[in-house]
């Protein structure tokens, strides 16, 4: 293996994935260095979820290779994953869902620990509730708390904030941006929102329509720490990046050509 990719948390090498005779994604080649916050943007159905599932080890590439931390990814080892749907276990309470994740990681899963994790995603007094007794946005936040329970070096998030109200979304975006900067975890984050992409990402990759390929690969040169979110959004560099990503999302083929 080349020495420079040893520091890479994720390496996609000419990855293609087909479902039956439908090519969902690829070929895509991407190196994600450790600590990077990579955001994938692209039209619906372009293969973003498929890419995340490949990195998580739930799918095997039809062609090319996927490496996470230098090895072929295995689900549940080294990567936390937030699916596009909450996928909570209805036979467990909200708190029980989070506790289960802690248990699998061999960590203490007492009440305080669980409530602390829930509080981190802005949920209070819901630990005893049944999963169907909370709103869709709250369910998604529980799913995030569940994925955050374990300190995996890699965090994969598939449109985690799509079902949230604007206020909560902004709060969680800020939270995630801060946490990722502080902990230096590698993140791969999927979204439809250009604004969210530029705000969160240290690098934004825009995909073409199906089969998804890289249309734009843009490093975001914005300060990651010590800056107020509103101030950040007001920076000219922020607006410039947003315009560039927005153009690529609207005309991905043009950028590719």
């Amino acid at each position: 293996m080349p020495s420079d990719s040893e520091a890479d948390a994720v390496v996609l090498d000419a990855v293609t994935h087909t479902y039956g005779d439908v090519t969902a994604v690829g070929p895509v080649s991407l190196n994600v260095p450790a600590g990077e916050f990579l955001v994938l943007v692209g039209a619906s159905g372009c293969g973003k979820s498929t890419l995340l599932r490949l990195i998580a080890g739930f799918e095997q590439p039809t062609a090319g290779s996927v490496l996470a931390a230098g090895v072929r990814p295995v689900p549940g080892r080294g990567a936390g994953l937030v699916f596009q749907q909450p996928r909570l276990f209805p036979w467990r309470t909200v708190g029980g869902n989070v506790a289960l994740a802690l248990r699998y990681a061999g960590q203490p899963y007492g009440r305080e620990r669980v409530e602390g994790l829930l509080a981190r995603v802005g949920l209070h007094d819901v630990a005893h509730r049944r999963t169907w007794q909370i709103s869709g946005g709250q369910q998604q936040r529980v799913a995030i708390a569940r994925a955050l329970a374990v300190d995996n070096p890699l965090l994969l998030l598939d449109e985690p904030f799509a079902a949230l109200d604007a206020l909560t979304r902004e709060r969680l975006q800020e939270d995630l941006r801060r946490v990722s900067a502080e902990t230096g975890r590698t993140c791969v984050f999927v979204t439809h929102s250009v604004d969210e992409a530029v705000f969160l990402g240290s690098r934004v990759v825009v995909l073409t329509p199906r089969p998804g390929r890289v249309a734009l690969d843009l490093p975001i040169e914005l300060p990651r720490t010590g800056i107020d979110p509103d101030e950040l959004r007001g920076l000219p560099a922020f607006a410039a990046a947003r315009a560039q990503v927005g153009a690529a999302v609207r005309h991905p083929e043009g950028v590719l050509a």
Partner: protein
Amino acid sequence: MSTSLETRPVTATPGATTALAPPRRKRRILLRLVALVVLYALWEITARTMNNPTFIPSPGAVWHQLIVTSSVHDGVRGYSGHLLIEHLGVSLRRILIGSVIGVVGGLVLGLVMGTVTWIRVVTEPVVTFIRALPPLAYFSLFIIWFGIDETPKLWLLSIAALPPVAVATASAVLGAPTGLVEASRALGANKWQAVRDVVLPHALPEIFTGVRIAVGVAYSSVVAAETINGVPGIGGMVRDAQRYSQTDVVVLGLFAIGLSGLLIDALLQVAEKRLIPWRGRA
């Protein structure tokens, strides 16, 4: 065995029956009471007009037998030396033991069938075959093998109770929701943990339906099993009463079986609601 003719859909929300609007509930109870009274009246009238207690005993005669079989009179204890409640107790004990063995066996078998393909391929026809047999058909075999005491009866009930649970468990395990299994794997669950924490809980509602059917099958088989050396036991009591044309005792035995069956199914339903609050949510 089901307490009512209306079969509850599996997806019914928990507490759906209790959540009925109070007036509707009241009307239902009232309707049932009226139906009971009408049935009772019909019975009374038929018994009187036929005036043939061996053919149709009157409600009064059955009631009288309830008192006679539940007490010691002229030095005779109940019926055939046992009180009615003792007959019933022995039968219920057989049902309990047989059902527990059958349910546990069915659960294990169903789990294995649902997870290991070749075992499913091999055992599925066997289970379906046994399920199709009337329990009485293999009872003779058990008598040849195990004699006429408790052993063949318990074998019969266990074997009769096993297939419904095995089939329900296997199908539920096979239908495990990929999304949730993946979610557990993503959280770091190993294969066994995924089975314990996702596949099994997801299967529980269906398994419970299987258990209710199994207990029902055991219930209906016990009377058959007790036709041979079945005293004490409700089936043995009914069998003896039939020999001596004591139709009132036969009818009393039917009531004892039917009513205790209703009670047990109601208990199972309550247990189901408490144990599986997520029924219909997964």
